């Protein structure tokens, strides 16, 4: 089996560009190459028109006004711009305290850490063992000087969906700017910013079958939210974000979001069916633990720990499928996932976790192959494991007193 192309089950790391998206992009790489900021000739106008059409498509998917969409180079930049931009703009009037969740993406946590170095204070709320935020704990974290809260809509590792509407309401009542990282949510959960009490929302194209290198930030107009620009220059995007707009990538994001809007209902049903099939298949294996709540969760994600199996060896053993342990951005390190540890999982269980993420091009045969592969490899690895033997002998490993060497 090893000479076949691996099965891609890592759609949460990045998705392939949908061929329909690529087809829309290519003319803007070849014949329509103008700079959308060039106002003196049709090369520029064609590019500008394409950029504005795409802005409408992005706005439509999330129920926003096109004027509320600011282009960025990706969700990382959107998150940096939203968090640093809003915190700095409102620090003098509202205060310097920020609330976020311990399971946020690094692109939210690290900008907040940066603000901490500049004199801000932050509260990182620990989620419940199911990955969801307890609203009472959120309320308790609020201080008179809380300026900003940032909570992700869909978690990248365990796929759980936070109750953004309820958290947003609490923020509104307390006059707190509310940012939501929705990089993993577009095309998976319905987003209607016309009703959602959210002030800033980050989007990415390459998690929704668009190209890498393009994202957007929603900045609410009513009530008007202000942010301090983090990138200065030609004054593009109404001064909020300078830099020549990458027309072909923007066109790609627009088309990807259009397809998402039109197809998400049927697509998500199909993906849920595949995910449930995978779940049922893998639950045949003893001592497996699903990480994160199963009900409040996108259908694309399954994160499972295989107890008594060493995660790295498991990844090596299942090379015929492309999956990840922890998120792609931190998978260069061997640290166990900080997300799973925040749920209270032991280091051992966190280490033996695999994230399967299913997408548009996954087939039933891919899922069946994956189930068989996992059953086979997990059982082989456990045969080699003394811990598994002890467990089978009825020894409670957590109570074993290991001798020091």
């Amino acid at each position, binding site marked *: 089996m090893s000479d076949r192309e691996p099965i891609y089950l890592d759609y949460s790391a990045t998705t392939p560009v949908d061929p329909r998206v690529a087809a829309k992009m290519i003319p803007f790489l070849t014949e329509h190459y103008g700079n959308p900021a*060039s106002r003196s000739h049709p090369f520029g106008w064609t590019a500008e028109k394409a950029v504005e059409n795409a802005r409408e498509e992005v706005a439509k998917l999330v129920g926003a006004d096109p004027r509320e969409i600011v282009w960025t180079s990706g969700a990382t930049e959107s998150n940096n711009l939203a968090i640093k931009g809003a915190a700095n703009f409102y620090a003098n009037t509202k205060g310097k305290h920020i609330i976020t969740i311990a399971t946020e993406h690094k692109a939210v946590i690290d900008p907040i850490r940066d603000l901490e170095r500049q004199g801000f204070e932050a509260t990182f709320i620990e989620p419940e063992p199911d990955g969801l935020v307890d609203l009472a704990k959120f309320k308790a974290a609020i201080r008179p000087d809380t300026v900003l809260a940032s909570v992700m809509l869909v978690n990248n590792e365990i796929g759980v969906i936070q109750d953004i509407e309820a958290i947003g309401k609490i923020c509104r009542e307390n006059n707190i700017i509310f940012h939501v990282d929705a990089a993993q949510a577009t095309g998976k959960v319905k987003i209607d910013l016309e009703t959602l009490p959210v002030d800033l929302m980050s989007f990415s194209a390459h998690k929704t079958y668009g*190209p890498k290198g393009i994202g957007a930030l929603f900045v609410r107009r009513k009530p008007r939210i202000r942010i301090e620009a983090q990138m200065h220059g030609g*004054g593009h995007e109404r001064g909020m974000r300078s*830099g*020549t707009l990458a027309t072909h990538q923007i066109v790609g994001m627009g088309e990807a979001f259009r397809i998402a809007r039109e197809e998400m209902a049927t697509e998500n049903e199909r993906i849920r069916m595949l995910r449930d099939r995978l779940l049922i298949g893998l639950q045949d294996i003893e001592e497996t633990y699903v990480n994160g709540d199963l009900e409040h969760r996108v259908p694309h994600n399954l994160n499972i720990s295989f107890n008594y199996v060493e995660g790295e060896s498991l990844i090596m053993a299942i090379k015929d499928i492309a999956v990840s342990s922890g998120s792609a951005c931190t998978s260069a390190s061997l640290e166990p996932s900080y997300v799973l540890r925040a749920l209270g999982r032991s280091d051992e269980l966190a280490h033996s976790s695999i994230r399967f993420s299913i997408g548009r091009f996954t087939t039933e045969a891919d899922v069946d192959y994956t189930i068989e592969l996992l059953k086979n490899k997990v059982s082989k690895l456990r045969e080699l494991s003394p811990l598994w033997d002890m467990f089978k002998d009825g020894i409670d490993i957590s109570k074993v007193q290991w001798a020091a060497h």
Partner: protein
Amino acid sequence: MSPVYFDHNSTTALKKEVLEAMLPFMASQHGNATSRHSFGRTARAAVEHAREQVAAAVGAYATQIVFTASGTEANNFAVHGICSNLLPAQILTSAIEHPCVSRPASALASSNRGYKAHSIKVDTDCNINMAHLQKLLQAPTNLVSVMLANNETGAIQDIAKVAEMAREHKAYVHTDAVQALGKIPVDFFALNVHAMTISSHKIGGPLGAGALVLDKRIDIQPLLHGGGQEKGLRSGTENVAAIVGFGAACELAVSHLTAFDMHTENLRKHLETGLGKLNAVIFGQNDLRIPNTSFFAFPNLDGETLVTALDKVGFAVASGSACSSDSDKPSHVLLAMGVEEDLARGAIRVSFGMSNTLEQVHHFLTALEKELNRLRNLTAIAA
């Protein structure tokens, strides 16, 4: 007749070979370069190959290349990143810098942290006034940033000299080489700067990729925090397709450099001979310039009107730079050179690429003469 594109300094068409290099990464090779499975490793290898290509084009080591999403981002990163980790002092940028260098400097200056931003004067020929720089450097300085080639006049600065002066005063040096790459030889070590910005879409690569070439001994503060890509200096999922295109474009730009220079310089020679006959004022004409750029004006004629008229007869040119073409302010570059505001307001930039021909230049001159006569008659009637 399809319009003739004379605005290559704004952005230039993607080269065919570049598109071919990119296409696999827009289709089957879709991995995230940080992922450890085979899809990810293929993407990683492609990014690292592009890094080698970019480094080779500017005489740097691959480890000195930090990929960004654009030249604007690389300039912001350089100015903000270098100064943020220093004891606040003054930041010197030349009066003709692109706003994505001067505005980050003034943003720092207005942040109440103790930074000051000062502008280095240029002479009437668009060259840095070295005496003024010398004078400014007497005060403690964090950073000196001077562009290698100006986007409007094309003037080339003596960056090695600027760097020598700055280093004598323990200041860091950055140069924006976006308009120089592919038009003149660019050598990071010879320029002796600490940081240098380059961009993909100005050299036949795609939009969406740029780089800061960086002496890594500098303690620089990232602009984007997150997943820790680019050794922690620039977080965000790598735009693999654009980076691959950038690498390919760098390689081609260097191998086509002589041909590009000979071709565009010849076009410009013909253009400027014609412009002289039409009594145009050509800015920085006797200065050392990148060969493809000509910036000129006609006294008593509004540039915007002329640009629009030229567009109607099929010629895409720019009035000042694309980035500021939203505003009707005269070019800050010309004002810094001491050009009268009225004359500056009428300025037109022609920037050539390999696809332009001598025939197009002659057609342009004919059309220009016709439009000039028409507009002058209109003005005469109005008066």
